[in-house]
């Protein structure tokens, strides 16, 4: 029992040893792959697309041709290799270079105005239009009968011609 146990544990140690070596190899092998393939240009660009560099105003980082932007893309690559996530990288850029690197202002403080203002004005517009349309309802029943007068004469001609036509087609 004892012996058996000992043999087993020796076997076990050996196994663990081999597994460890194998794992180490795997890891280093993986690292080699990572250095070649990860991150690809496309992966870098996917993040760069959402960033704006102050050197080229209003052009996303992934397509900006300046040297400064090329360096920024290299920085993204560096951080990705170090295992940073997209949000971490973006946060790093904000801390380094300010809010202007983001494609839209972060929703906090005064910046809420960016997002609130358009809907508020639009709702205001809807209210104005609604008030105008409400006037209709009051009078529409009475007016609806004779409101054709202003209609396009030509359109009416066509409508009439079409009606005649449709009737003929129905008959035949």
């Amino acid at each position: 029992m004892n012996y058996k146990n000992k043999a087993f544990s020796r076997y076990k140690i050996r196994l663990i040893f081999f597994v460890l070596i194998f794992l180490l190899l795997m890891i280093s092998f993986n690292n080699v792959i990572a250095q070649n393939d990860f991150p690809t240009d496309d992966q870098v660009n996917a993040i760069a697309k959402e960033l704006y560099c102050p050197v080229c105003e209003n052009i996303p980082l992934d397509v900006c041709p300046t040297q400064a932007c090329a360096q920024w893309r290299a920085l993204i690559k560096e951080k990705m290799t170090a295992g940073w996530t997209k949000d971490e990288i973006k946060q790093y850029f904000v801390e380094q270079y300010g809010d202007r690197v983001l494609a839209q202002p972060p929703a906090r403080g005064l910046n809420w105005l960016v997002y609130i203002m358009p809907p508020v004005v639009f709702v205001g517009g809807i209210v104005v239009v609604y008030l105008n349309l409400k006037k209709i309802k009051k009078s529409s029943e009475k007016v609806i009968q004779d409101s054709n007068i202003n209609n396009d004469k030509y359109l009416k001609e066509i409508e009439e011609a079409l009606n005649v036509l449709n009737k003929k087609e129905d008959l035949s």
Partner: protein
Amino acid sequence: MLPNLGYGSLVITLIVSIYAIVSAVIGERKNLYKYVESARLALLLTFPLLTLTVISIVILLVNQNYEVQYVYNVTSSTMPLYLKVTALWGGQAGSLVFWAWLMAAFGTAVTLRKWDRDLDLLPWVIIVSSVTLVFFLIMIIAFENPFIRFWTLPSGGELVAMFAPAGSQLIHPFDGRGLNPLLRHPGMIIHPPMLYLGFVSFVIPYAFGMAALITGRKDDRWIRLTRRWTLVAWMFLSIGLILGSRWAYDVLGWGGYWAWDPVENAAFMPWLSGTAFLHSVMIQEKRGLFKRWNMILVIFTYSLVIFGTFLTRSGVLSSVHAFAQSAIGPMFFIFIGLSFIISLAFLIKRWDELRSEGIMTSLLSRESLFLINNLLFIGILVVVFWGTVYPLISELFTGQKVTVGPPFYNSTTGPLFVGLLLLMGIAPLSAWGHSTWKTLGKALWIPAIGSLILLVVLLVSGVRSIGALIGLTVASLAAFVTIYEFWRGMKARHKRSGENYLVALWKLTVRNRRRYGGYVIHLSVVFMAIGIIGIELFQTETQGRIAPGESLSLAGYTVTFKNLAEFDVADGRNVARAVLSVSKNGKDLGELYPRRDFYYDSQQPMTIPGVRSTVEDDLYIILVNWEQISSMGATFKVFHNPLINWLWYGGFLLVVGSFIAAWPDPEKEIELVPSRILRKETGKLVSKP
């Protein structure tokens, strides 16, 4: 002494236009026709005078007179002739002269028309046009004189001045600095004049609107008189915007056509309010509604034109397109302030008189749908305006610079644009005055079935993007409705008069140009919507570094790098040009040549993509980087832009539609009113009871 001639005629134009203002004011105050007539003739003079100025500049540019600062700044000896001529609008000073010249041309054109019925409007139209012209002339003469030259003083110092300082000599630089290479593109040669044409011709409807507002005329004469102007202005602005997008697509080399850049927005905003105006004037013509709203819209449009020009030229907002900073900013600011305040003041003064003559009668009537259309256009305008201005607000209150970029605009304006497309499908079928669900449904069901079939086809073919499904279905509804309308009219004519279908279609369109021209424009918008949906929602891209013989693949295309060469070209460029062979599913499709041009005179690089265009998609390749010495490997960025060409097709169709809609009908224009002769005899401008 060409510079002196050009400058002299600038100064004379200024004096003449100031005279026009004064004379028109006197004529209006004293109700005397002869003063107004004198003002009109003065305004007529401005065009030939400014033409002299423009010709002087062009000759200086073509003759390479580099002693003139403007010529030195925008041309160089390596530039071809057509670029030297178009360098007229390549810089700040020249483009201001060009602006003023167009303003004079339009002012002239407008005063040449028959004024019989509308003499009371004439003095104010002259005043508004001349004031705008005077403002631009003062800016040119005081701050941006294109004729100033380089001089050496006897003391040895150098300076730029209009006239020779005592004892000084002209300096003749050997060569100029050359036009910004970004601007050396066919699109950039036509794009600014189109935009300016659009901008300047919107001044005319505004002048008429203000004239009506000031004189207190309540009828819709000003709208009828300027209908065609508005349409033409709108067309030029549209062409300008489309060419600008095309230029960005071809030259800026970032695979897109529109970046929501402040300067792009500056040109887009008057287009939005102008488009709303174009629709809403029809309600006033047909139903006498929305008089105030139309005034507001025309004032908005003019203000946005001036504001846009201000944004581009003052350096308030930074942008790739912006002109170099100059002293005209404060001047512009004062002009903007005054014109805004004066317009608003008159609007408020006449507010009560401008009430609607009719009343809206039905929720589904054409006018209600137009009202919603206006709401959507103004909604988009507010979003664009806010996004453009917000970075300034942020900097003012928090000291923090921010970017308001495409994600903001796309998510906020996207639904509004879809709403507009939907209206485009419904509104043409609704009647003025009233429509009911029943009448509307009767007309709508055939096109609607067409759209539903398309939706099913899209779903079956594997399209899963919600945005694309909604967008394409709604766009197709608008297209089917428009085609259906043509079909109905054509069929009716055919049955009634026995004309064959083509003749029927032709006569239908010719007899009712405004309506069917409008429909053609609607169709063009559908085309553009398809292009935009294609590139916005289905664009794919990949980037990679490849050695000769290696390839990248994207969307079924395989791009193989053959070789790369670097060489100098006679016109002052260093070119790095890659040769790539393209194949799709094993079939050879020829070669593409993305390149990088480096301009020695301005020390600026340019990335010119290699593009293969078809109806269904574009393959768009940019040369990102390469090995300088060995040219063994290069990095390429490949974009696949589905359907993008529909955007440009739509642009062509838009021009066709605008021409149909704006083509004058000769028989209607002639109105024999003898009042003019009468007025000439009495000498009174307006016969007041």
